[in-house]
């Protein structure tokens, strides 16, 4: 006889992250064992921990499974086009510098079609907090190869095995100029929360990569089990090594995963540099941008 579920079923309001969710849209579309929800959980807890003013937050996502995050968080949120969350977020931030702008998107969205925007925003040090959920695949469209898919993986567009080298995202964004670079997995829920909270304190381009399971496509096609198996792999094979040179932080299909905070440096953000340059060149003729109020 099946168990009855009479265990305490309390009002969901008790869940500390509930105020950050669009409860009217739950349950969400992500697969059983998908790690994206876990990253959102960590993200919401970072919002609580950092005591950030929720009204000042804007979240921008692209297209893909992670792109759907924008639709589930109760913030001013924008589900934009594939690869273009970062330029959209740039426009938001420049028009209203008081906003805390988060870009929450996937590995394919940010590093393939969005790759150009990723490196330029890092170069410019635009004050954005980028959370890149890396499930090593294009999940939403059915499991195609992404620039992050590890060598020898099987995907729907590399049915005989991936033979391209994959991106080392922390290395890429560090080289492009990011001031805060960290990588965690969905196993590292507490550390992820802490990194996100730290990024909120940082001015400039912050990039947090979160390795996350895609049970339906990546895990299944590569006979790596389900989401829980991935989590166990992360637990077993992750090594927390803060300050590791990012060039040594590449990923393979079943090898070691170096996690931690890799880069935490300071340099002036885009808007600071812009104002400084204008003030220097124009002197008294420089007019600061007023608050953009249109009515």
């Amino acid at each position, binding site marked *: 006889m099946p168990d009855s579920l009479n265990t305490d079923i309390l009002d969901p309001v008790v869940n500390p992250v509930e105020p950050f969710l669009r409860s009217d849209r739950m349950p969400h579309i992500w697969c059983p064992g998908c790690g994206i929800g876990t990253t959102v959980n960590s993200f919401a807890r970072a919002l609580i921990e950092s005591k950030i003013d929720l009204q000042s937050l804007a979240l921008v996502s692209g297209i893909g499974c992670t792109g759907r995050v924008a639709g589930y968080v109760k913030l001013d949120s924008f589900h934009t086009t594939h690869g273009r969350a970062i*330029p959209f977020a740039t*426009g938001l931030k420049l028009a209203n510098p008081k906003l805390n702008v988060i870009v929450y998107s996937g590995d394919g969205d940010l590093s393939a079609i969005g790759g150009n925007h990723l490196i330029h925003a890092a170069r410019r040090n635009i004050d954005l907090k980028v959370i890149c959920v890396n499930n090593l695949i294009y999940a939403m469209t059915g499991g195609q190869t992404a620039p992050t898919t590890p060598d020898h993986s099987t995907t729907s567009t590399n049915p005989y095995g991936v033979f391209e080298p994959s991106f080392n995202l922390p290395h890429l964004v560090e080289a492009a100029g990011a001031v805060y670079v960290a990588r965690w997995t969905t196993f590292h829920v507490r550390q992820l929360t802490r990194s996100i909270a730290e990024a909120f304190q940082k001015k400039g381009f912050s990039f947090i990569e979160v390795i996350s399971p895609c049970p339906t496509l990546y895990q299944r096609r590569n006979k790596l089990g389900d989401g829980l198996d991935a989590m166990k792999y992360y637990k077993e094979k992750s090594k927390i090594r803060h300050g590791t040179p990012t060039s040594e932080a590449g990923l393979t299909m079943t090898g070691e995963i170096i996690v931690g905070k890799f880069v935490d440096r300071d340099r002036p953000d885009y808007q600071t540099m812009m104002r400084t340059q204008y003030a220097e060149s124009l002197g008294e003729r420089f007019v600061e941008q007023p608050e953009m109020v249109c009515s």
Partner: protein
Amino acid sequence: MKADPRGVLTGVHFMDGDHACCEGALAAGSRFASGYPITPSTEVVERFASRVPTVGGTFIQMEDELAASITLQGAVWGGAKAFTVTSGPGFSLMMEHIGYAAMTETPCVFVDVQRGGPSTGLPTLPAQADMMQARWGSHGDYEIIALCPNSPQECFDLTVKAFNLAEEFRVPVMFMMDEVVGHMTEKVVIPPADQIEVVPRRHTRKPVADYLPYETNGDMVPEIAHAGEGYKFHITGLTHDERGYPNMTPQIQDKLVRRLQNKILQAADRIAMFEEEQLEGADVVVVSYGITSRVAQRAIEAARKQGLRVGKLRLITAWPFPDKKIRELAANVKAFVVPELNLGQMVREVERSAAGQAKTFAVSHAGGGVHNPEDILKVIVEASRCRTA
């Protein structure tokens, strides 16, 4: 609402169309532009880059047109009036985001200073071959508004109008210049700010609890809120309902795209702007726009000197296409003559609207220069001689 004097360069100027367009944007209240260099449009943003730090605003040159065309939209949702500027190849790159603006109802302006195409084509020479693209370039069903200036003065006046239409209808407006109008230098009179009418953003006054981002009343245009004001709204390019939430059913799709279409089409009479001359009793009406309208004027006058009854209809609004006007004229004239710097684009719309009631003659020119007035005159004469349809 009157223009903010800080952005208005009141005075009598000798400037080219690109520069005048920039001044129009500033006068309209735009304080944000994102761009990417492309001949013959670049001067618009070069001037903006130079002017805006002295007025109070931001210009950013993005890494490509894919970025430029969406950065401006982020700025709109952050509270700014924003635009970008491009030409053929860049316009093609911007198409996805024009569709995004139409779908999310983001008020903004896209300036296309048309040049020879297709592909790299003729970077420094004129054409008018993006007219259909302005209307149909992005995928799916949507409507836009397109304006065609024919002088630097109009580049100023109509840019203000473009921003006003964008705000009124929450739609991306295509500002279809051409290389000649953009690079032609003429007198441009910029009036004092209190003589320039500017439409403010249709910002909601509803309290947070009552606000739905895509709820509409009679005029089918929803009220907007900006990020950072506490509304916690969701915007998506997916088919969505009044809450802004993805709702991907045929019923919601039908409701949404028809509203996006109807909010423009049902106001088409209000939006339409033309210049009319001697349409009463005309046998032939020359329909033209942009720089071609100025060349056509020469041909029209020559034809009239020959005793022909030629009317002029200059399209200032090219989209939505003035079906009604053409239909009415078609009932009374023998023929339309449509000179264009392309191999036949707006002429198709004229022919469609005329519905066989009048003949339609194209005067095509593949671009790279302007028509020879004689070539237009020849067709006007031929059109006058044709038998009534």
